[in-house]
């Protein structure tokens, strides 16, 4: 395929990704079974007595009362609601992340039937980020041992390595 044509097809496909994200964003609220941050902020009462899933960052914990308070954010990462989760013995510290599934109640509270600790504290999200960077570097590094960038044609060509010949016997 000629370089110009490949660039053109590539641009069309990039628009395709953006289009998919737009469609996903436009249809998410009606297809996802649980309220988003925006929906909780604007129509909280509509979800009272419903069993819903909340995912949020822990603000405070009270092991004696078996409660913890989490922040639910909206699309802009702004705080949309602050919900007090009851009946949870989840071992988590402020700055951690939890999923809580249970019945939403008035006055921004929830009685949880299931709580999952995603990150016990802030250090675990840093751990995931650091390890993920290693993963990205490993994948790209290994890729570059097998493929070589041809800047003129904007393509990756297979490197001629002995490994290939070895593997083919």
């Amino acid at each position, binding site marked *: 395929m000629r370089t110009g044509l490949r660039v053109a097809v590539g641009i069309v496909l990039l628009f395709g*990704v953006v289009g998919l994200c737009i469609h996903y964003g436009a249809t998410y609220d009606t297809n996802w079974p649980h309220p988003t941050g925006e929906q909780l902020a604007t129509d909280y009462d509509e979800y009272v007595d419903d069993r819903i899933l909340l995912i949020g960052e822990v603000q405070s914990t009270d092991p004696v009362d078996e409660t913890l308070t989490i922040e639910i954010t909206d699309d802009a990462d702004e705080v949309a609601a602050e919900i007090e989760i009851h009946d949870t013995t989840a071992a988590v510290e402020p700055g951690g992340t939890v999923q809580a599934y249970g019945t939403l109640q008035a006055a921004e509270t929830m009685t949880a039937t299931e709580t999952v600790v995603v990150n016990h504290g802030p250090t675990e999200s840093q751990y995931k980020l650091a390890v993920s960077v290693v993963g990205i570097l490993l994948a790209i590094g*290994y890729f570059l041992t097998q493929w070589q960038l041809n800047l003129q044609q904007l393509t990756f060509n297979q490197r001629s390595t002995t*490994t290939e010949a070895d593997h083919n016997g």
Partner: protein
Amino acid sequence: MAELLSHVLIAYTIFTLASWYVEWFTKRWVAMGMIGALFPDLSRIGLFVTDATIETMLGVPFNIGAVHTIGGISILAAIGSLVVADHQRTAFAVLVAGGISHLLTDGLKIWADGFASAWLYPLSWYRHPTPGLYISSDYRVLVVVGSVALAVALLDHRVIVDRHTSTDNR
């Protein structure tokens, strides 16, 4: 998501095993599959630019989460296949397979309501029940996956040496 290192090592393991049985599936395709395993987490661009910012720019709803679905990785794989000099169809298939290995692995993790994310989008919004095997911050996932990948890497080295030896003796 599990962290990306686990996803990359899982892809390495699966595709290296495939290379033992399928002759044309050489190391360059193993490397390609590992790149495909990164694709779903391109949705983490959301850590730097919020959906709301892009919505304001475009004037329409936007959710980067679409990238973390079968539809998202398929288009990204099509883009990826354009930048290889030849065997574009194979590149596309291997990139998609790498992305699916990531999505399937994520489909095994714990959700509080017992159902995985709707990763089959746009084919379906179905959320399958999850066996709830792990949480993403559990370092034991990396220990297990890393150990298996290391064992496969060592065996792979041996497979190559054996083949080399048998070729020499022919």
